[in-house]
């Protein structure tokens, strides 16, 4: 009887778990909504949601705790396809997808579709070129695979480095997302929110590793999906009267575009844009005449303050000016950096905006089509080589299941992505209808709330005390989080969206932490430094490494180094340039050898890092580098740096391989074995998976 129960649980357990969890989540939201109508404080709703999200992690971790290495890193290699797909989907859906995607579409309309296309198109490459072969190989990490194919410690060190740098940048972006959400909804300090979120993640990964991750992520998918679909459905219902998720938004899109064309051509908008163009010109001159211009500016502002004090101007204005004076840059270098940013902003606002349907027509840069394609390229390649995603395919039961599993994970991802443009469209419509033309004194309450934490700002440049489109600056990260407030929904829905965002950010952070940990503890410590370490000692090392990495990530994230989407795009470029050529050539081109792989990885990473650093940063103060900024090549932005790094990696890999000795017999046999799910000449009736090369646990 007990055995039968177990079997039943084994077969239907995952589905049962997910559906029970969904019901539980909906009931919780309803109960909280009822409590809110009874006067429960908003702050408590925020706390409860945060607590619940973390509790799920902790409980799953507790129930699936393990001290077995294979269980810890690859969940015992017996996860069924659909369940693995669901959890890989959640692993994939990060803060960037949940918060950033709709934001990118809001900000740049058609141009933002590069993210939709790239992030889903990469799955095709993953499914066709990598997933089944990695599963056939079946060890623990990507460096394991590359070493088995090419051999040697150098390749392990290099690929572990590539894995770590890409994952670390990506995890910092997630942690940043956690800080953003907690600081708005739970009014915790940004820093405290970051550390609290990480603590929850650590409890889960710490105890259960990959196995805990599988279950926790399936549960989080439920939170994430409900949280993403509900607010936009209600907002769309208010606008269109159709009570269904707005997958078909064509009509609203047409309304939006005609409204955009009308608003953008209003005389006051044109005037405001001209004022920004003038400001840009002033800034340009000021930058050109540094360092004298800094003194001129400082004197000018002081004189103005003196004059105001003498003429009994309102104290508020004087205080404002004094604050401005204090915020003035101290040195010419700092002024250069500050003013460059202001100049960029002013230039951006001075151009006529394009409507959402217009493809590649950002007039300020003629290379927008090239950038669009380049970004798609980087994101697809990056998707197919992000280590935390690829590692998933080691944990699946068989090669054929691995093929199916990619299908399921993409399907779960697509469910979310289908609605991202709807968010952008409906929120923009709302902004154009109910924010543009409103007096600055009586802004909608959601605008006020987000202004307070600095993510929305209104700059009344023409002093007409009315809001113009060009005067609004909304951080794209706000769009999804603010939608419930824009739709006038009770706070509980905002809390739910925050919980969804947290689930997305934390689950991805967890997958990434696990992959960094594996690189450090498995590849570098166990395989290179101490091959004789016992398996329990290996796990102890892994877990301590994980805590260390988490702390580093949090410490960097609290510095807020760049915007969410930027950091994510860099991680993709780096992963793609470092790993993709070596992986794909390793599977499909027998002639690729160790020297080629090493040269390819080094070149790919070097080109990408060089490009990002020099195009994106003008100075890195803590290294003492100043004035290193350069003009982009062919107008390609730093986000798409991989478009140079990946081909460079491929070309160098192939050239060096051809110039050096062909790979050994061993590598050739390895490739041969990789190609067939079962080897025919082995003729033994093997239990699944046991013919794999090098399976010694």
């Amino acid at each position, binding site marked *: 009887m007990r055995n039968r129960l177990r079997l039943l649980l084994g077969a239907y357990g995952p589905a049962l778990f997910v559906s029970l969890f969904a019901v539980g989540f909906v009931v919780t939201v309803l109960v909280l909504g009822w409590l809110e109508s009874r006067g429960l404080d908003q702050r408590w709703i925020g706390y409860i949601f945060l607590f619940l999200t973390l509790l799920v992690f902790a409980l799953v971790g507790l129930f699936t705790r393990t001290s077995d290495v294979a269980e810890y890193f690859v969940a015992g290699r017996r996860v069924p396809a659909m369940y693995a797909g669901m959890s890989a989907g959640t692993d994939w859906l990060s803060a960037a997808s949940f918060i950033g995607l709709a934001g990118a579409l809001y900000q740049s309309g*058609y141009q933002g*579709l590069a993210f*939709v*296309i790239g992030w*889903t*198109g990469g*799955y*095709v*490459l993953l*499914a*066709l*070129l990598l997933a*089944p072969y990695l599963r056939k190989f079946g060890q623990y990490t990507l460096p394991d695979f590359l070493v088995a194919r090419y051999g040697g410690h150098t390749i392990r060190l290099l690929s572990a480095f590539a894995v770590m740098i890409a994952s670390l940048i990506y995890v910092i972006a997630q942690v940043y997302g956690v800080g953003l959400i907690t600081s708005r909804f739970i009014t915790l300090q940004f820093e405290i929110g970051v550390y609290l979120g990480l603590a929850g993640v650590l409890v889960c990964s710490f105890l259960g590793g990959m196995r805990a991750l599988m279950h926790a992520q399936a549960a989080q998918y439920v939170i994430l999906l409900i949280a993403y679909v509900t607010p936009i459905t209600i907002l769309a219902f208010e606008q269109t009267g159709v009570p269904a998720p707005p*997958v*078909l938004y*064509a*009509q609203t*899109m*047409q309304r939006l575009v005609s409204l955009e064309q009308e608003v953008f051509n209003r005389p006051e908008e044109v005037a405001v844009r001209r004022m920004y163009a003038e400001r840009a010109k002033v800034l340009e001159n000021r930058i050109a005449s540094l360092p004298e211009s800094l003194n001129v500016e400082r004197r000018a502002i002081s004189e103005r303050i003196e004059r105001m004090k003498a003429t009994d101007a309102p104290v508020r204005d004087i205080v404002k000016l004094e604050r401005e004076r204090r915020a003035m840059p101290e040195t010419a270098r700092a002024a250069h950096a500050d003013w460059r940013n202001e100049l960029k902003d002013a230039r951006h606002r001075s151009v006529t905006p394009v409507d959402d*349907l217009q*493809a*590649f027509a950002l007039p300020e840069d003629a290379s927008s*089509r090239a950038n*669009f*394609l380049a970004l*798609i*390229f980087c994101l*697809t390649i990056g998707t197919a080589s992000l280590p935390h995603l690829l590692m998933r395919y080691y944990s699946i039961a*068989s*090669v*054929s299941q691995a*093929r*199916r599993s*990619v*299908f399921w994970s*993409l*399907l779960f991802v*697509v469910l979310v*992505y*289908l609605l991202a*443009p709807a968010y952008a469209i409906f929120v923009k419509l709302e902004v154009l209808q109910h924010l543009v033309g409103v007096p600055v004194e009586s802004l909608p309450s959601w605008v006020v709330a987000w202004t307070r934490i600095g993510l929305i700002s209104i700059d009344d440049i023409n002093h007409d005390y009315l809001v113009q489109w060009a005067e609004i600056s909304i951080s794209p990260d706000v769009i999804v989080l603010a939608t419930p407030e824009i739709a006038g929904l009770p706070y509980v829905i905002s809390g739910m969206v925050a919980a969804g965002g947290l689930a997305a950010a934390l689950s991805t952070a967890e997958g990434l932490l696990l992959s960094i940990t594996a690189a450090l503890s498995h590849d570098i410590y166990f395989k290179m430094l101490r091959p004789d370490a016992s398996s329990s000692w290996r796990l102890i090392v892994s877990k301590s490494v994980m805590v260390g990495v988490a702390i580093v990530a949090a410490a960097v994230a609290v510095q807020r180094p760049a915007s969410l989407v930027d950091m994510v795009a860099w991680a993709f470029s780096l992963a793609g340039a470092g790993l993709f050529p070596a992986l794909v050539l390793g599977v499909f081109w027998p002639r690729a050898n160790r020297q080629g792989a090493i040269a390819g990885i080094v070149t790919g990473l070097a080109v990408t890092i060089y490009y990002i650093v020099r195009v994106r940063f003008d100075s890195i103060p803590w290294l003492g580098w100043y004035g290193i900024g350069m003009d982009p090549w062919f107008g390609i932005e730093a986000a798409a740096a991989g478009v140079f790094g990946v081909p460079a990696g491929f070309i160098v890999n192939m050239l060096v391989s051809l110039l050096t000795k062909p790979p050994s017999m061993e590598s050739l046999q390895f490739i041969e074995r990789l*190609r*067939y*799910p*079962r*080897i*025919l*000449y082995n003729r033994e*009736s*093997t*239990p*699944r*998976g046991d013919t794999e090369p090098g399976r010694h646990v």
Partner: protein
Amino acid sequence: MSEIIQQQRAYWRKTMAVTLSLLLIWFLVTFVASYFSQWLNQWTFLGLPLGYFIGAQGVLFIYPMLIGVYALWMNRLDRQFGVEEQ
């Protein structure tokens, strides 16, 4: 022995054919359609200009289909050539 090797070679050739043909469709949808997006916008599909529709919704149907076809096709090929896992 050599018969088995030949069979394996044939399996691999088929695999490459499947992979390459699906990748070709993928490339057309991803890069060629995006490149000509402006030109495609002269037609509308489900109320949206075609170029925009492909980027925003079309790919979200085509990509899962490509992967689904690959999984079914390859799993059948495995059985056909007797290289499936037991």
